């Protein structure tokens, strides 16, 4: 399989994730869609790593996994804090931070 196929798949997954972030209102599902986008980027990075026969892209992908884990932890922490306050768990209702 040529690398172009992997890049095309990565672009499709990224587009799906972006559409999901725009269309869903539950913050948990928005975080899941962010995971989709990060995974698409990982697929492209690993594809390029294979293309050059160089391990650097894989290290980059590993760091992306770490950053994604941090983002999930903090994001879910915020969602739990929202729930504790009886705030609606719905991004359309949370307008205060947008100024």
């Amino acid at each position, binding site marked *: *399989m*040529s*690398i*172009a*196929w992997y*890049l095309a*798949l990565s*672009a499709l*997954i*990224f*587009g*799906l*994730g*972006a*559409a*999901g972030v*725009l*269309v*869903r209102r*539950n913050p*948990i*599902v928005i975080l*899941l*869609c962010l995971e*989709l986008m990060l*995974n698409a980027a*990982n*697929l492209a990075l*690993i594809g390029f*790593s*294979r*293309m*050059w*026969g160089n391990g*650097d892209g*894989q*290290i980059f*992908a*590993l*760091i992306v*996994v*770490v*950053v994604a*884990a*941090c983002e*999930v*932890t*903090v994001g*879910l*922490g915020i*969602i*739990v804090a*929202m729930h*504790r*306050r*009886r*705030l609606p*768990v*719905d991004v359309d209702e949370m307008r*205060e931070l947008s100024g």
Partner: protein
Amino acid sequence: MSTLVFFIAAIGALTGAIGVIALKNPYYSVLALVGHMISLAALFLLLRAEFLAAAQVIIYAGAVIVLYVFVVSYVGESAPTVGQNPGRMAALGAFACGAALVVELFIAVLGSGLQAISHDGAPYVAGFGTPAQIGTLLLTRFLAPFEIASYLLLVAAIGAVTLARRRRGLETGIEGRPPTLELADLLGLRPQGTGTMHEAGGAVEVVEP
């Protein structure tokens, strides 16, 4: 053979991605994400990234998904859906944005004129993508990013505990105002005895302000 595996895994990954954004119940979305992650791990194996495939399954399909499931069972079902659903136009607009992004990426990648993307990649060298190679790279050339990533994880863990900590006495809002999440909550300005392990064990009498 690798073509067949690629298409099966690609269809799995796309189905999982569509499932994440289309299913109404957050539990099912999380489950769809597991399928997506496992398909992606198969693709990583095809790209000779053995260590990352294993890490993907263990970290994502294992640890991160467990976190999601806990939070969904704590929050998800009770999430009130106030207001009306986003209209058809909004959904169509979102998918149009996604489609535009995909087209743009296709043009960027295929129009880049890179010769190498239409080949199978560099010749395979034994040991590429194994834990040994990744470990050597992490501890030699990429030592600084490796250490910074560990600090980032530490900061994220402490931040999540601070954010999600139990704070009794602050849940109903102050003097009739609707409850909000404020900076003071994060800085520890809270009633005496709340937000401690002692309180979680039920050992502290909370003094109502």
